[in-house]
């Protein structure tokens, strides 16, 4: 393959296709509602930041972002923490029922959230966790823990077993070895697993909306507020949408060098 400095047409068209709808959202978020509804303009004629001001000055709005970030973080930490030892067990040992257990875990990744919405609502109400960040974080472990186990297992398989054995001969205890030697070796795997947990918890709406009313309501659910008596407040809706893209974009930027390998779940 020769070095080609120009970027090719397929890629340009594809990126254009990806960016256009996002640009349109950004464009709308910078317009006044009058301009959105009355004039069709390709870029804002009268640039305004009022829509963003509305969101960032009203606790009912911006607390949604805080809530989302709290439960997403809790979920990511929890999922990766419990998945680490389990993934180690799956990658190193064979034990009674290991294959069945692994597939059973994966089935939870496949379960449609719609199936679980009502039972979750009843379960968390009955244990008094309804409308808390913990409830959403726990509910999201349903699909994130299996995914984290799956990803981490893939990465751990790539670490030669001799390393474990040498460490044990050198007198390391399991815990010591795991934290001091093993975890740094699969650091990129942990990063990728955390990235995926963050991603799927951040984008999910059905469960987080069902499990919250006020205190832990995620931003995605608050966005429905823009449907007021006077119709939809398009400008604010678009601004809220743009702001939900920002955390994702930041996270992607930080992990950009691991994305390609990470998406293969360590199986390349």
């Amino acid at each position, binding site marked *: 393959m020769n070095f080609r400095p120009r970027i090719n047409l397929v890629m340009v068209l594809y990126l254009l296709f990806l960016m256009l709808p996002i640009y349109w959202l950004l464009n709308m978020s910078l317009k006044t509602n009058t301009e959105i509804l009355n004039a069709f303009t390709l870029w804002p004629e009268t640039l305004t930041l009022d829509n963003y001001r509305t969101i960032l000055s009203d606790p009912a709005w911006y607390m949604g972002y805080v809530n989302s970030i709290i439960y997403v973080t809790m979920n990511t930490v929890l999922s990766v923490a419990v998945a680490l030892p389990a993934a180690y067990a799956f990658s190193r040992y*064979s034990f009674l029922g290991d294959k069945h257990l692994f597939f059973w875990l994966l089935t939870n990744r496949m*379960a449609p959230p719609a199936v679980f919405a009502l039972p979750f609502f009843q379960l968390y109400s009955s244990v008094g966790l309804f409308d808390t960040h913990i409830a959403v974080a726990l509910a999201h472990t349903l699909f994130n823990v299996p995914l984290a186990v799956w990803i981490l297992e893939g990465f751990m398989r790539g670490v030669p077993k001799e390393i474990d054995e040498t460490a044990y001969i050198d007198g390391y205890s399991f815990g010591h070895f795991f934290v001091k030697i093993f975890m740094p070796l699969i650091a990129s795997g942990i990063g990728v697993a955390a990235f995926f947990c963050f991603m799927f918890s951040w984008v999910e709406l059905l469960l987080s909306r*069902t499990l919250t009313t006020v205190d832990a309501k995620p931003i995605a659910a608050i966005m429905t507020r823009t449907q007021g008596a006077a119709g939809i407040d398009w400008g604010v809706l678009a601004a809220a949408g743009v702001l939900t893209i920002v955390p994702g974009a930041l996270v992607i930027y930080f992990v950009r060098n691991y994305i390609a390998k990470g998406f293969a779940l360590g199986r390349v």
Partner: protein
Amino acid sequence: MEKTVNQKAWFLVLPVLLLVAFSAVIPLMTVVNYSVQDTFGNNQFFWAGLDWFRQMLEDERMWNALRRQVIFSGVILAIEVPLGVLIALNMPKRGVMVSVCLVLMSLPLLIPWNVVGTIWQIFGRVDIGLLGHTLAALGVDYNYTQDALDAWVTLIVMDVWHWTSLVALLAYAGLKSIPDAYYQAARIDQASRWAVFRYIELPKMTGVLTIAILLRFMDSFKIYTEPFVVTGGGPGNATTLLSIDLVKMALGQFDLGPAAAFSIMYFLVILLVSWVFYTVMTNLDQQGGK
């Protein structure tokens, strides 16, 4: 890798087991419970046996939703997989552009699903959306809230927009793992571009593509938020996919028994297909030596 037999490994798996038991088994048992009982309110339940299952199986409603769902998943897989591979093949080889492309491509993946819906809802509107407006200006009669076909096209384009990058990134990861020596050998043999793709690139991508297809199948089969925001299942029932129908039944009408029976059958279908994929995938893992 040879694995040591060690039953104590169960202790390492225990935290996951407890957590998943709480967040999956208890709710699932609730569903099973509802599916075999009937209630007249006041938390009084009566044994209903398999009546709900029978009722659902005889009901056109579930079959229609299932048919729409199969068509939807089939169409998006047929578009996204080849397109994703094409995109991966056209990725820049090195330099800053690689990072730029990767970041831009991943962007749709991290947008909350209802925002994805909102983006396309706005984008497709004839009065304020770029797509709808442009199509109207070109004289195309396009209205996704009125016309079933337009609604379908919008949903499919939206899903392609949302998820093709996932397939592309997986395929790209597969391509990156091919050593340069393979390409050099192919050049010495004067292999055509097609032969390189067919005999070098495609075999190396099989593993990751299986993962891609598995993930896309699972996720498209349980899609809810995006179509709900864009079309709400309409016009009529034209885009009422399985999850939308289920939520209508369970949370909208509180028909617990039928909804639970529906849930279980829904889950079983996904389970069956995923099991087939999973078996294929593990076999590939073992053959290809990872």
